[in-house]
Protein backbone atom coordinates (compact mmCIF):
# COMPACT_ATOMS: atom_id res chain seq x y z
CA UNK A 1 0.00 0.00 0.00
CA UNK A 2 1.17 3.54 -0.67
CA UNK A 3 1.68 5.53 2.49
CA UNK A 4 2.54 8.75 0.62
CA UNK A 5 1.28 9.78 -2.77
CA UNK A 6 1.71 13.11 -4.47
CA UNK A 7 -0.19 14.42 -7.42
CA UNK A 8 1.20 17.21 -9.59
CA UNK A 9 2.88 18.59 -6.51
CA UNK A 10 4.55 21.96 -7.15
CA UNK A 11 6.16 24.60 -5.02
CA UNK A 12 7.20 28.10 -6.06
CA UNK A 13 9.28 30.32 -3.76
CA UNK A 14 8.48 34.04 -3.76
CA UNK A 15 5.55 33.77 -6.12
CA UNK A 16 4.79 37.08 -7.81
CA UNK A 17 8.16 38.68 -6.98
CA UNK A 18 11.21 39.12 -9.19
CA UNK A 19 12.82 36.31 -7.15
CA UNK A 20 10.24 33.73 -8.23
CA UNK A 21 11.73 30.24 -8.28
CA UNK A 22 10.03 26.93 -9.02
CA UNK A 23 11.63 24.51 -6.56
CA UNK A 24 9.34 21.53 -7.21
CA UNK A 25 7.65 21.01 -10.54
CA UNK A 26 4.61 18.69 -10.81
CA UNK A 27 5.90 15.74 -8.84
CA UNK A 28 4.00 12.44 -8.96
CA UNK A 29 5.54 10.13 -6.42
CA UNK A 30 4.35 7.01 -4.65
CA UNK A 31 6.03 5.73 -1.52
CA UNK A 32 5.10 2.32 -0.15
CA UNK A 33 4.55 1.60 3.50
CA UNK A 34 7.67 0.32 5.24
CA UNK A 35 10.17 1.01 2.47
CA UNK A 36 13.46 2.87 2.73
CA UNK A 37 13.70 5.50 0.01
CA UNK A 38 16.88 7.43 -0.74
CA UNK A 39 16.50 10.88 -2.25
CA UNK A 40 19.39 12.18 -4.33
CA UNK A 41 19.84 15.24 -6.50
CA UNK A 42 22.22 18.06 -7.28
CA UNK A 43 22.38 21.09 -4.95
CA UNK A 44 19.23 23.16 -5.41
CA UNK A 45 17.29 20.36 -7.09
CA UNK A 46 14.44 20.74 -4.60
CA UNK A 47 15.00 17.89 -2.15
CA UNK A 48 14.62 19.94 1.03
CA UNK A 49 11.58 21.71 -0.39
CA UNK A 50 9.93 18.38 -1.15
CA UNK A 51 10.50 16.91 2.30
CA UNK A 52 9.21 20.07 3.96
CA UNK A 53 6.01 19.76 1.97
CA UNK A 54 5.67 16.09 2.87
CA UNK A 55 5.32 16.91 6.56
CA UNK A 56 3.14 19.94 6.05
CA UNK A 57 5.64 22.66 6.95
CA UNK A 58 5.10 24.47 3.70
CA UNK A 59 1.91 24.37 1.74
CA UNK A 60 2.09 23.28 -1.89
CA UNK A 61 1.59 26.04 -4.43
CA UNK A 62 -0.46 23.50 -6.37
CA UNK A 63 -1.11 19.77 -6.33
CA UNK A 64 -1.89 17.43 -3.46
CA UNK A 65 -0.11 15.15 -1.01
CA UNK A 66 -1.99 12.16 0.32
CA UNK A 67 -0.92 10.41 3.50
CA UNK A 68 -2.58 7.00 3.84
CA UNK A 69 -5.06 8.10 1.20
CA UNK A 70 -6.20 11.42 2.68
CA UNK A 71 -5.10 14.88 1.54
CA UNK A 72 -2.93 16.30 4.34
CA UNK A 73 -4.24 19.83 3.76
CA UNK A 74 -7.87 18.73 3.89
CA UNK A 75 -8.24 20.51 7.22
CA UNK A 76 -5.34 22.95 7.71
CA UNK A 77 -6.11 23.23 11.44
CA UNK A 78 -5.16 19.59 11.90
CA UNK A 79 -1.78 19.94 10.22
CA UNK A 80 0.05 19.46 13.51
CA UNK A 81 -1.23 15.88 13.62
CA UNK A 82 0.38 15.26 10.25
CA UNK A 83 3.71 16.47 11.62
CA UNK A 84 3.53 13.86 14.37
CA UNK A 85 2.95 11.17 11.74
CA UNK A 86 5.64 12.37 9.36
CA UNK A 87 8.74 13.23 11.38
CA UNK A 88 11.29 15.49 9.69
CA UNK A 89 14.91 15.90 10.76
CA UNK A 90 16.23 19.09 9.17
CA UNK A 91 19.55 19.72 7.51
CA UNK A 92 21.90 20.73 10.37
CA UNK A 93 19.30 19.92 13.06
CA UNK A 94 21.66 20.77 15.93
CA UNK A 95 20.60 24.43 15.67
CA UNK A 96 17.14 23.55 16.98
CA UNK A 97 18.31 22.47 20.45
CA UNK A 98 17.16 24.82 23.20
CA UNK A 99 16.34 23.10 26.48
CA UNK A 100 18.41 22.97 29.66
CA UNK A 101 19.12 19.28 29.33
CA UNK A 102 19.31 16.88 26.43
CA UNK A 103 16.57 14.81 27.99
CA UNK A 104 14.15 17.74 28.11
CA UNK A 105 15.00 18.65 24.56
CA UNK A 106 14.25 15.17 23.26
CA UNK A 107 11.01 15.26 25.26
CA UNK A 108 9.84 18.47 23.54
CA UNK A 109 8.14 16.63 20.64
CA UNK A 110 6.40 13.94 22.74
CA UNK A 111 5.31 16.62 25.22
CA UNK A 112 3.72 18.60 22.38
CA UNK A 113 1.84 15.42 21.49
CA UNK A 114 0.30 15.50 24.95
CA UNK A 115 1.66 12.17 26.19
CA UNK A 116 1.86 11.23 29.86
CA UNK A 117 5.14 11.78 31.76
CA UNK A 118 5.73 8.03 31.97
CA UNK A 119 5.32 7.56 28.22
CA UNK A 120 7.53 10.56 27.53
CA UNK A 121 10.32 9.17 29.70
CA UNK A 122 10.09 5.80 27.96
CA UNK A 123 10.18 7.38 24.51
CA UNK A 124 13.15 9.58 25.36
CA UNK A 125 15.17 6.60 26.48
CA UNK A 126 14.34 4.44 23.48
CA UNK A 127 14.91 7.35 21.06
CA UNK A 128 18.30 8.04 22.63
CA UNK A 129 19.18 4.38 22.21
CA UNK A 130 18.08 4.33 18.57
CA UNK A 131 20.12 7.37 17.67
CA UNK A 132 23.17 6.12 19.56
CA UNK A 133 23.25 8.76 22.27
CA UNK A 134 25.01 7.58 25.42
CA UNK A 135 22.64 7.71 28.39
CA UNK A 136 24.99 9.74 30.59
CA UNK A 137 24.63 12.61 28.10
CA UNK A 138 20.91 12.91 28.79
CA UNK A 139 21.38 15.08 31.87
CA UNK A 140 23.89 17.42 30.20
CA UNK A 141 23.12 20.76 28.55
CA UNK A 142 22.74 20.32 24.79
CA UNK A 143 25.14 23.23 24.29
CA UNK A 144 27.94 21.26 25.97
CA UNK A 145 27.80 18.37 23.50
CA UNK A 146 30.14 17.84 20.57
CA UNK A 147 28.83 18.48 17.06
CA UNK A 148 28.14 14.81 16.41
CA UNK A 149 26.42 14.33 19.74
CA UNK A 150 24.25 17.38 19.12
CA UNK A 151 23.23 15.86 15.79
CA UNK A 152 22.25 12.63 17.52
CA UNK A 153 20.28 14.48 20.17
CA UNK A 154 18.37 16.39 17.50
CA UNK A 155 17.61 13.19 15.59
CA UNK A 156 16.45 11.55 18.83
CA UNK A 157 14.09 14.50 19.32
CA UNK A 158 12.23 13.50 16.16
CA UNK A 159 12.45 9.73 16.63
CA UNK A 160 10.90 10.20 20.09
CA UNK A 161 7.65 11.21 18.41
CA UNK A 162 7.58 7.72 16.87
CA UNK A 163 6.45 8.94 13.44
CA UNK A 164 5.08 6.49 10.84
CA UNK A 165 7.34 8.11 8.29
CA UNK A 166 10.78 9.35 9.29
CA UNK A 167 12.46 11.79 6.93
CA UNK A 168 16.11 12.75 7.39
CA UNK A 169 17.58 15.61 5.37
CA UNK A 170 21.31 14.98 5.01
CA UNK A 171 21.78 13.63 8.53
CA UNK A 172 25.44 12.78 7.98
CA UNK A 173 26.59 16.12 6.51
CA UNK A 174 29.63 17.40 8.37
CA UNK A 175 30.30 14.24 10.41
CA UNK A 176 33.57 12.32 10.41
CA UNK A 177 33.67 9.06 8.37
CA UNK A 178 33.32 6.78 11.41
CA UNK A 179 30.49 8.90 12.78
CA UNK A 180 28.69 8.74 9.44
CA UNK A 181 28.90 4.96 9.28
CA UNK A 182 27.64 4.53 12.81
CA UNK A 183 24.77 6.95 12.32
CA UNK A 184 23.74 5.27 9.05
CA UNK A 185 23.88 1.84 10.64
CA UNK A 186 21.67 3.15 13.41
CA UNK A 187 19.15 4.53 10.95
CA UNK A 188 19.07 1.18 9.11
CA UNK A 189 18.67 -0.58 12.42
CA UNK A 190 15.79 1.72 13.33
CA UNK A 191 14.15 0.95 9.99
CA UNK A 192 14.50 -2.80 10.50
CA UNK A 193 13.21 -2.85 14.06
CA UNK A 194 10.31 -0.44 13.78
CA UNK A 195 9.36 -1.36 10.19
CA UNK A 196 8.60 2.33 9.62
CA UNK A 197 8.91 4.13 6.32
CA UNK A 198 12.19 6.06 6.09
CA UNK A 199 13.16 8.75 3.58
CA UNK A 200 16.83 9.68 3.52
CA UNK A 201 18.16 12.70 1.62
CA UNK A 202 21.89 12.43 1.00
CA UNK A 203 24.66 13.60 -1.27
CA UNK A 204 26.61 10.43 -0.61
CA UNK A 205 25.85 7.73 -3.15
CA UNK A 206 27.67 5.25 -0.93
CA UNK A 207 25.31 6.00 1.96
CA UNK A 208 22.26 5.63 -0.25
CA UNK A 209 23.56 2.42 -1.85
CA UNK A 210 24.07 0.90 1.58
CA UNK A 211 20.65 1.69 2.95
CA UNK A 212 17.94 2.39 0.37
CA UNK A 213 15.46 -0.02 -1.22
CA UNK A 214 14.46 2.52 -3.82
CA UNK A 215 15.86 5.86 -4.95
CA UNK A 216 14.13 9.08 -5.95
CA UNK A 217 16.31 11.14 -8.27
CA UNK A 218 15.55 14.87 -8.33
CA UNK A 219 16.82 17.17 -11.04
CA UNK A 220 15.97 20.86 -11.40
CA UNK A 221 12.78 20.49 -9.38
CA UNK A 222 11.54 17.44 -11.26
CA UNK A 223 11.42 13.81 -10.21
CA UNK A 224 13.52 12.08 -12.87
CA UNK A 225 13.43 8.52 -11.54
CA UNK A 226 11.88 6.54 -8.70
CA UNK A 227 13.18 3.00 -9.11
CA UNK A 228 14.89 0.38 -7.05
CA UNK A 229 18.47 1.07 -6.10
CA UNK A 230 20.09 -1.28 -8.56
CA UNK A 231 18.12 0.05 -11.51
CA UNK A 232 18.96 3.65 -10.69
CA UNK A 233 22.66 2.95 -10.27
CA UNK A 234 22.75 0.98 -13.51
CA UNK A 235 21.93 4.24 -15.31
CA UNK A 236 25.24 5.89 -14.51
CA UNK A 237 25.44 8.04 -17.63
CA UNK A 238 22.05 9.61 -17.04
CA UNK A 239 23.01 10.32 -13.44
CA UNK A 240 26.23 11.95 -14.53
CA UNK A 241 24.33 14.26 -16.83
CA UNK A 242 22.42 15.47 -13.77
CA UNK A 243 25.61 16.18 -11.85
CA UNK A 244 25.34 12.94 -9.87
CA UNK A 245 27.34 9.75 -9.99
CA UNK A 246 27.10 6.09 -9.04
CA UNK A 247 28.97 4.73 -6.00
CA UNK A 248 32.70 4.34 -6.64
CA UNK A 249 32.59 0.60 -6.19
CA UNK A 250 29.72 0.22 -8.66
CA UNK A 251 31.79 2.11 -11.21
CA UNK A 252 34.86 -0.04 -10.63
CA UNK A 253 32.91 -3.25 -10.90
CA UNK A 254 31.10 -2.23 -14.08
CA UNK A 255 34.49 -1.16 -15.47
CA UNK A 256 35.86 -4.62 -14.77
CA UNK A 257 32.80 -6.18 -16.36
CA UNK A 258 33.28 -4.08 -19.50
CA UNK A 259 36.83 -5.37 -19.76
CA UNK A 260 35.55 -8.88 -20.00
CA UNK A 261 35.62 -10.13 -16.43
CA UNK A 262 32.71 -12.45 -15.82
CA UNK A 263 31.09 -10.80 -12.81
CA UNK A 264 27.45 -9.77 -12.20
CA UNK A 265 26.36 -6.13 -12.65
CA UNK A 266 24.69 -3.87 -10.12
CA UNK A 267 27.21 -4.22 -7.29
CA UNK A 268 26.44 -1.52 -4.76
CA UNK A 269 28.65 -1.98 -1.74
CA UNK A 270 32.24 -2.89 -1.01
CA UNK A 271 31.11 -5.99 0.89
CA UNK A 272 29.17 -7.26 -2.13
CA UNK A 273 32.13 -6.55 -4.37
CA UNK A 274 34.48 -8.43 -2.04
CA UNK A 275 32.33 -11.54 -2.06
CA UNK A 276 31.82 -11.37 -5.82
CA UNK A 277 35.57 -11.04 -6.38
CA UNK A 278 36.31 -13.88 -3.97
CA UNK A 279 33.86 -16.10 -5.85
CA UNK A 280 35.47 -15.09 -9.13
CA UNK A 281 38.90 -16.04 -7.87
CA UNK A 282 37.51 -19.36 -6.62
CA UNK A 283 36.12 -20.05 -10.08
CA UNK A 284 39.22 -19.11 -12.05
CA UNK A 285 41.64 -21.02 -9.86
Amino acid at each position, binding site marked *: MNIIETENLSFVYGQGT*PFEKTANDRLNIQIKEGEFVGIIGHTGSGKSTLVQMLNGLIRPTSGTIRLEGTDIWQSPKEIRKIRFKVGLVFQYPEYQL*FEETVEKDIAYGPRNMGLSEGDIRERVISAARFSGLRSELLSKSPFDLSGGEKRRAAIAGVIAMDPDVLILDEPTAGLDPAGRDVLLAQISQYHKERKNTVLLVSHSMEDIAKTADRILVMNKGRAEMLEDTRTVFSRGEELERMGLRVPQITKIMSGLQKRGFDIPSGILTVEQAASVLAAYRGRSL
Partner: protein
Amino acid sequence: MLKDVTLGQFLPGVSPIHRLDPRAKILFLIALIVFIFITSNYISLALVAAFIVALVFMTRIPVKMYLKSMKMILFIVLFTGIINLFYGRGEPLVKIGFLQITEAGINNAVFVSVRIAVLILASSMLTFTTSPTDLTDALERLLKPLTVFHIKVHEIAMMMTIALRFVPTLLEETDKIMSAQKARGADMESGNLIKRIKALIPVLIPLFVSAFRRAEELATAMECRCYQGGSGRTRMKRLHFGKADLYGLAACLLVLCGVIICNIFLPATVR
Protein backbone atom coordinates in the same frame (compact mmCIF):
# COMPACT_ATOMS: atom_id res chain seq x y z
CA MET B 1 6.90 33.43 5.55
CA LEU B 2 8.91 36.09 7.28
CA LYS B 3 10.87 36.73 4.13
CA ASP B 4 7.81 38.21 2.52
CA VAL B 5 8.51 41.44 4.40
CA THR B 6 9.10 43.92 1.57
CA LEU B 7 9.74 47.12 3.50
CA GLY B 8 13.45 47.85 3.42
CA GLN B 9 14.24 45.22 0.85
CA PHE B 10 16.66 45.81 -2.05
CA LEU B 11 15.50 44.75 -5.52
CA PRO B 12 18.45 44.89 -7.92
CA GLY B 13 17.79 46.45 -11.31
CA VAL B 14 19.16 48.73 -14.03
CA SER B 15 16.61 51.54 -14.09
CA PRO B 16 17.70 55.22 -14.13
CA ILE B 17 16.66 55.43 -10.47
CA HIS B 18 18.86 52.47 -9.56
CA ARG B 19 21.82 54.20 -11.13
CA LEU B 20 21.50 57.50 -9.32
CA ASP B 21 24.18 58.33 -6.78
CA PRO B 22 22.91 57.01 -3.42
CA ARG B 23 23.84 60.30 -1.74
CA ALA B 24 21.68 62.14 -4.23
CA LYS B 25 18.88 59.67 -3.65
CA ILE B 26 18.93 60.24 0.09
CA LEU B 27 18.90 64.02 -0.39
CA PHE B 28 16.06 63.79 -2.95
CA LEU B 29 14.09 61.66 -0.52
CA ILE B 30 14.48 64.25 2.21
CA ALA B 31 13.54 67.01 -0.25
CA LEU B 32 10.43 65.13 -1.37
CA ILE B 33 9.35 64.60 2.21
CA VAL B 34 9.74 68.30 2.89
CA PHE B 35 7.76 69.14 -0.28
CA ILE B 36 4.89 66.88 0.62
CA PHE B 37 4.64 68.49 4.03
CA ILE B 38 4.70 72.09 2.77
CA THR B 39 1.93 71.51 0.25
CA SER B 40 -1.16 73.37 1.35
CA ASN B 41 -3.69 72.76 -1.40
CA TYR B 42 -4.90 69.96 -3.62
CA ILE B 43 -3.08 71.16 -6.73
CA SER B 44 0.36 71.16 -5.12
CA LEU B 45 -0.39 67.89 -3.31
CA ALA B 46 -1.34 66.31 -6.64
CA LEU B 47 1.80 67.74 -8.21
CA VAL B 48 4.13 66.12 -5.67
CA ALA B 49 2.15 62.87 -5.63
CA ALA B 50 2.25 62.72 -9.45
CA PHE B 51 5.98 63.35 -9.41
CA ILE B 52 6.54 60.47 -7.02
CA VAL B 53 4.24 58.13 -8.91
CA ALA B 54 6.19 58.96 -12.08
CA LEU B 55 9.43 58.09 -10.26
CA VAL B 56 7.88 54.84 -9.04
CA PHE B 57 7.19 53.84 -12.62
CA MET B 58 10.72 54.82 -13.62
CA THR B 59 12.16 52.25 -11.18
CA ARG B 60 10.64 49.45 -13.31
CA ILE B 61 9.84 47.53 -10.15
CA PRO B 62 6.43 45.84 -10.23
CA VAL B 63 3.84 48.12 -8.62
CA LYS B 64 2.77 45.04 -6.66
CA MET B 65 5.93 45.29 -4.56
CA TYR B 66 5.09 48.86 -3.58
CA LEU B 67 1.56 47.88 -2.75
CA LYS B 68 2.88 45.07 -0.56
CA SER B 69 5.02 47.47 1.43
CA MET B 70 2.06 49.85 1.73
CA LYS B 71 -0.13 47.04 2.98
CA MET B 72 1.70 46.88 6.27
CA ILE B 73 1.20 50.58 6.88
CA LEU B 74 -2.33 50.68 5.53
CA PHE B 75 -3.77 50.36 9.02
CA ILE B 76 -1.86 53.41 10.26
CA VAL B 77 -2.92 55.41 7.19
CA LEU B 78 -6.57 54.51 7.68
CA PHE B 79 -6.41 55.08 11.42
CA THR B 80 -4.91 58.56 11.22
CA GLY B 81 -7.15 59.36 8.27
CA ILE B 82 -10.30 58.46 10.19
CA ILE B 83 -9.20 60.26 13.36
CA ASN B 84 -8.53 63.39 11.32
CA LEU B 85 -11.89 63.07 9.63
CA PHE B 86 -13.61 63.92 12.93
CA TYR B 87 -11.23 66.60 14.05
CA GLY B 88 -12.05 69.42 11.65
CA ARG B 89 -13.54 72.70 12.86
CA GLY B 90 -16.41 74.50 11.20
CA GLU B 91 -19.88 73.67 9.89
CA PRO B 92 -20.67 69.97 10.34
CA LEU B 93 -21.69 68.21 7.12
CA VAL B 94 -22.70 64.96 8.78
CA LYS B 95 -23.39 64.26 12.46
CA ILE B 96 -23.11 60.83 14.02
CA GLY B 97 -23.83 61.11 17.74
CA PHE B 98 -21.19 63.34 19.25
CA LEU B 99 -18.96 62.89 16.19
CA GLN B 100 -19.16 65.35 13.35
CA ILE B 101 -17.59 65.50 9.94
CA THR B 102 -16.76 68.89 8.51
CA GLU B 103 -15.27 69.98 5.23
CA ALA B 104 -12.02 70.84 7.01
CA GLY B 105 -12.06 67.35 8.53
CA ILE B 106 -12.34 65.72 5.12
CA ASN B 107 -9.52 67.90 3.82
CA ASN B 108 -7.33 66.99 6.77
CA ALA B 109 -8.04 63.30 6.35
CA VAL B 110 -7.14 63.36 2.66
CA PHE B 111 -3.95 65.32 3.26
CA VAL B 112 -2.74 63.17 6.12
CA SER B 113 -3.46 59.92 4.26
CA VAL B 114 -1.83 61.05 1.05
CA ARG B 115 1.18 62.40 2.93
CA ILE B 116 1.80 59.16 4.79
CA ALA B 117 1.22 57.09 1.67
CA VAL B 118 3.67 59.21 -0.31
CA LEU B 119 6.18 58.99 2.54
CA ILE B 120 6.07 55.19 2.44
CA LEU B 121 6.17 55.12 -1.33
CA ALA B 122 9.22 57.39 -1.47
CA SER B 123 11.13 55.55 1.22
CA SER B 124 10.33 52.14 -0.28
CA MET B 125 11.62 53.53 -3.56
CA LEU B 126 14.90 54.42 -1.89
CA THR B 127 15.42 51.01 -0.26
CA PHE B 128 14.14 49.06 -3.28
CA THR B 129 16.63 50.71 -5.60
CA THR B 130 19.68 51.11 -3.37
CA SER B 131 21.73 48.27 -1.96
CA PRO B 132 22.20 48.44 1.82
CA THR B 133 25.94 48.90 1.41
CA ASP B 134 25.47 51.84 -0.96
CA LEU B 135 22.97 53.28 1.43
CA THR B 136 25.21 53.24 4.48
CA ASP B 137 28.17 54.31 2.38
CA ALA B 138 26.21 57.34 1.26
CA LEU B 139 25.08 58.08 4.81
CA GLU B 140 28.64 57.93 5.99
CA ARG B 141 29.64 60.48 3.36
CA LEU B 142 26.73 62.75 4.07
CA LEU B 143 27.40 62.68 7.82
CA LYS B 144 31.16 63.11 7.43
CA PRO B 145 31.07 66.76 8.54
CA LEU B 146 29.90 65.55 11.97
CA THR B 147 33.36 64.07 12.67
CA VAL B 148 34.25 67.63 13.64
CA PHE B 149 32.16 67.06 16.76
CA HIS B 150 34.00 63.78 17.50
CA ILE B 151 31.09 61.68 16.35
CA LYS B 152 32.39 58.34 15.05
CA VAL B 153 30.60 58.44 11.74
CA HIS B 154 32.53 55.56 10.20
CA GLU B 155 31.85 53.26 13.13
CA ILE B 156 28.17 54.12 13.15
CA ALA B 157 27.94 53.48 9.43
CA MET B 158 29.79 50.18 9.81
CA MET B 159 27.39 49.08 12.54
CA MET B 160 24.47 49.97 10.31
CA THR B 161 25.95 48.06 7.39
CA ILE B 162 26.46 44.99 9.54
CA ALA B 163 23.00 45.23 11.07
CA LEU B 164 21.37 45.60 7.65
CA ARG B 165 23.51 42.81 6.25
CA PHE B 166 22.30 40.43 8.93
CA VAL B 167 18.60 41.23 8.82
CA PRO B 168 17.86 38.77 6.00
CA THR B 169 20.20 36.19 7.49
CA LEU B 170 18.48 36.34 10.85
CA LEU B 171 15.05 36.27 9.25
CA GLU B 172 16.03 33.20 7.29
CA GLU B 173 17.42 31.61 10.42
CA THR B 174 14.25 32.39 12.38
CA ASP B 175 12.23 30.79 9.61
CA LYS B 176 14.40 27.71 9.72
CA ILE B 177 14.31 27.30 13.48
CA MET B 178 10.56 27.90 13.54
CA SER B 179 10.10 25.20 10.92
CA ALA B 180 12.30 22.81 12.86
CA GLN B 181 10.29 23.35 16.04
CA LYS B 182 7.01 23.14 14.18
CA ALA B 183 8.19 19.81 12.83
CA ARG B 184 8.41 18.74 16.47
CA GLY B 185 4.83 19.83 17.02
CA ALA B 186 5.35 23.37 18.32
CA ASP B 187 2.09 25.26 18.26
CA MET B 188 2.68 28.96 17.70
CA GLU B 189 -0.67 29.94 16.24
CA SER B 190 -3.15 29.18 18.99
CA GLY B 191 -3.65 29.80 22.68
CA ASN B 192 -3.66 32.96 24.76
CA LEU B 193 -0.90 35.56 24.92
CA ILE B 194 1.13 33.88 27.69
CA LYS B 195 0.97 30.54 25.88
CA ARG B 196 2.11 32.14 22.65
CA ILE B 197 5.02 33.91 24.30
CA LYS B 198 6.05 30.64 25.93
CA ALA B 199 5.85 28.94 22.54
CA LEU B 200 8.46 31.40 21.27
CA ILE B 201 11.15 30.27 23.73
CA PRO B 202 12.19 27.27 21.61
CA VAL B 203 12.73 29.71 18.74
CA LEU B 204 14.40 32.57 20.60
CA ILE B 205 17.03 30.55 22.45
CA PRO B 206 18.55 28.91 19.38
CA LEU B 207 18.28 32.24 17.57
CA PHE B 208 20.26 34.09 20.24
CA VAL B 209 22.82 31.32 20.45
CA SER B 210 23.42 31.50 16.74
CA ALA B 211 23.40 35.31 16.62
CA PHE B 212 26.15 35.45 19.23
CA ARG B 213 28.10 32.76 17.43
CA ARG B 214 27.82 34.71 14.18
CA ALA B 215 28.86 37.95 15.85
CA GLU B 216 31.94 36.31 17.29
CA GLU B 217 32.84 34.72 13.96
CA LEU B 218 32.41 38.03 12.18
CA ALA B 219 34.58 39.85 14.72
CA THR B 220 37.31 37.26 14.29
CA ALA B 221 37.09 37.46 10.52
CA MET B 222 37.35 41.26 10.60
CA GLU B 223 40.33 41.13 12.91
CA CYS B 224 42.03 38.56 10.70
CA ARG B 225 41.76 41.06 7.88
CA CYS B 226 43.30 43.77 10.06
CA TYR B 227 40.20 45.91 10.32
CA GLN B 228 40.94 48.86 12.57
CA GLY B 229 38.27 51.43 12.00
CA GLY B 230 37.84 54.19 9.50
CA SER B 231 41.05 56.19 9.58
CA GLY B 232 43.16 55.76 6.47
CA ARG B 233 40.71 53.40 4.82
CA THR B 234 40.27 53.67 1.07
CA ARG B 235 37.32 52.49 -0.95
CA MET B 236 36.89 50.03 -3.75
CA LYS B 237 33.69 51.66 -4.95
CA ARG B 238 33.78 55.42 -5.12
CA LEU B 239 30.56 57.35 -5.34
CA HIS B 240 30.29 60.07 -7.93
CA PHE B 241 27.73 62.66 -8.70
CA GLY B 242 26.93 62.31 -12.42
CA LYS B 243 24.77 63.79 -15.14
CA ALA B 244 21.73 61.74 -14.17
CA ASP B 245 21.95 63.17 -10.68
CA LEU B 246 21.94 66.67 -12.15
CA TYR B 247 18.74 65.88 -14.10
CA GLY B 248 17.27 64.58 -10.87
CA LEU B 249 18.22 67.77 -9.10
CA ALA B 250 16.66 69.85 -11.89
CA ALA B 251 13.42 67.85 -11.67
CA CYS B 252 13.30 68.31 -7.92
CA LEU B 253 13.85 72.05 -8.23
CA LEU B 254 11.08 72.25 -10.82
CA VAL B 255 8.66 70.49 -8.51
CA LEU B 256 9.74 72.74 -5.65
CA CYS B 257 9.00 75.82 -7.75
CA GLY B 258 5.63 74.33 -8.69
CA VAL B 259 4.75 73.71 -5.06
CA ILE B 260 5.80 77.20 -4.00
CA ILE B 261 3.89 78.89 -6.81
CA CYS B 262 0.75 76.86 -6.03
CA ASN B 263 1.07 77.63 -2.36
CA ILE B 264 1.40 81.34 -2.99
CA PHE B 265 -1.23 81.86 -5.65
CA LEU B 266 -3.90 79.38 -4.64
CA PRO B 267 -5.92 79.49 -1.43
CA ALA B 268 -4.71 77.09 1.26
CA THR B 269 -7.03 74.16 2.00
CA VAL B 270 -5.19 73.09 5.14
CA ARG B 271 -3.32 75.27 7.56
